[in-house]
């Protein structure tokens, strides 16, 4: 009866705290949508089309072949003969035809506007290299008389492609671990900011304990002889429940909300029990950390700084703010200390790796171990804080 009353009290206070609700729901939703949008051109399944100018002074057969070969490498992109200075430019030399068989060979010049991103530069560079190799192979075959007479340019290109392309099988060997390199913007942003938002329960949790102690309510509890287990459970249970609600709501925003703003929908790959286990593990880790911070902080302000600071550091090093795939090796090693990183890896094992319970189990085990350590330390310090609650009189 006492535990139920305390849980009800904590839930009512939380539901009536607009700041806490904003931190727990609005903030991660905004981050999720903004970051999914912001990263959509960088982390996406299909690269975006490029707008290019191909300058070919000779209008020769070889330069037309090069044009067709380059277009085949960049099927969605638009290759124009002329365009504004802001567009990337591929310029063939005036003696393009004559020098195709030279060794070493001077290829076309690529010029990029400043805003042309690095990934697109690399993509264009690779496409030009392949198209140029195919053009040179055609010139070589023609020069050696090995190119069949009477073929149309399209047939020549098909022949060259057959000669230069190999079948490469791709097999995913790992369904767990850091899959951020394979994740698209939605698969990266939704779990990352969902985890970030779930960890933010530590703020209202620690803050409510400080207010309880400062108001004297805790003094009443002490005089009533309320047990430590009842007090700690009354703090943790409502936030565990809130964490689970966050999990469902933010995933739903990923599935149903993101397409409304033109972003790819989140596909909930992997097994449902694995999602349940992951949600419970994260929730236990966050509420145990909340208990620890509640016991460590000495005021509401300290709880805010300590909780917010720890969360941002864990997120920064844990691959939440920047995908681990773009981090250097040393930073990736450092990420391994962040429980947010463990949760994110487990999440990506489901979303990207289509994993099952087996794939999320290692991450969940680490989260549960973290929950146990933080929870036991938190209980010990919480007990001390409750014992230190004194009858204070302010004159």
């Amino acid at each position, binding site marked *: 009866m006492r535990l*139920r009353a305390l849980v009800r009290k904590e839930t009512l206070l939380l539901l009536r705290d607009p700041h806490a609700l904003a931190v727990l729901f609005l903030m991660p939703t905004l981050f999720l949508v903004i970051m999914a949008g912001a990263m959509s051109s960088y982390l996406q399944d299909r690269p975006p089309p490029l707008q290019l100018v191909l300058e070919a002074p000779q209008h020769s057969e070889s330069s037309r072949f090069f044009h067709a070969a380059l277009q085949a490498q960049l099927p969605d992109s638009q290759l124009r003969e002329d365009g504004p200075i802001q567009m990337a430019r591929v310029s063939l030399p005036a003696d393009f035809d004559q020098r195709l068989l030279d060794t070493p060979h001077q290829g076309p010049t690529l010029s990029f506007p400043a805003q042309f991103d690095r990934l697109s530069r690399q993509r264009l560079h690779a496409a030009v290299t392949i198209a140029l190799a195919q053009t040179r192979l055609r010139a070589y075959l023609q020069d050696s008389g090995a190119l069949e007479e009477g073929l149309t340019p399209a047939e020549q290109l098909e022949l060259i492609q057959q000669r230069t392309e190999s079948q490469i099988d791709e097999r995913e060997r790992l369904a767990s671990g850091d899959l951020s390199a394979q994740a698209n913007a939605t698969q990266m942003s939704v779990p990352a900011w969902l985890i970030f938002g779930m960890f933010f329960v530590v703020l209202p949790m620690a803050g409510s304990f400080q207010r309880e102690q400062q108001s*004297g*309510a805790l003094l009443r509890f002490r*005089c009533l002889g*309320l047990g430590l287990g009842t007090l700690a459970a009354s703090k943790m249970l409502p936030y565990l429940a809130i964490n689970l609600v966050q999990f469902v709501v933010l995933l739903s925003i990923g599935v149903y909300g993101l397409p409304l703003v033109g972003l790819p929908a989140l596909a909930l790959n992997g097994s449902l029990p694995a999602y349940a286990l992951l949600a419970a593990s994260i929730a236990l880790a966050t509420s145990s950390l909340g208990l620890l911070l509640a016991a460590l902080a000495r005021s509401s302000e300290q709880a805010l700084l300590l909780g917010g600071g720890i969360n941002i550091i864990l997120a920064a090093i844990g691959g939440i703010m920047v995908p681990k795939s773009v981090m250097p090796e040393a930073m990736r090693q450092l990420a391994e200390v962040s429980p947010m990183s463990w949760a994110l890896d487990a999440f990506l094992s489901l979303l990207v790796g289509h994993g099952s319970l087996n794939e999320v189990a290692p991450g969940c085990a680490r989260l549960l171990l973290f929950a146990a350590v933080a929870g036991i330390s938190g209980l010990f310090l919480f007990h001390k804080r409750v014992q230190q609650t004194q*009858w204070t*009189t302010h*004159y």
Partner: protein
Amino acid sequence: MLELSHLAYRYPGATQPALNGIDLQLQAGQCLGLLGSNGAGKTTLLSLLSGVLQPLDGQIVWHVERRLGLVPQQLAFYAGLKVKENLALFADLYGLRGAERRHCMERCIATTALQDKLERRAERLSGGEQRRLNFAIGLLQPAELYLFDEATVGVDAASRQLLLDAVQQLVAEGKAVIYTSHYLDEVEQVADRILLLHEGRVQLDIDKHQLLGEQPGLFLEWPEQAPDALPALLAELGLNAEHTPNGVRIATLDVEQLLAITRFIAAQPQTPSLLRFGRPSLEQLYLRLNGGRL
């Protein structure tokens, strides 16, 4: 009902004990006014009685079931909850159910006149109403002993009287009360026994009426010092007077003597800072007994 014997407590790291050998018996239906300067040991005594601290020496013996009602100086409730939600929460925590719960809720709401505020969030109550809610939560618990610690700080006169009436009602119902306040007129109104602590010891434990005396008297004080001619006048009138630093207290006098003194005062260049006929107030006695200590 409650017996404290040789009760002692020393805070960790302190050189002097906060309480040192307190002996006290408290009966049902008794209101003890707990007085003392800052650091005298009042808060420590309340902490020991409420179980927040454990005595290092001595013991607290309850001759009835240990049930304690508590009204601390802090507003010990939840600002974000409505008045009725706060009361329901503490009713649950006190283990109140069924008819007893209804009775206790109705009684504490009526006593603190919060009927019209039940749907309002505590944070939106006025200062006086918040005090009344704090009081109501303390009264809600069926208890044998109620502790009130500066329970009326910052409330308006009407709310204050309401709360003092509630304390007197508890005493009339046979509950024991320990009441500590820096408003000594409140203590004078509700307490029937005064316990004065000094440096962790009981300096005075006396029936209030005995302390204040049943005989009225005349109290005279001047801002700096009493007129030089005053002793001669008192001798001429045959009055026995107790001298205070700036004046006198005359225990008994008749109308003629009072008129003579009044004429003397009117003839003086400086008017008295205090002229009171009646019993001494607890505050005057406290200041005298406590020697002006802070």
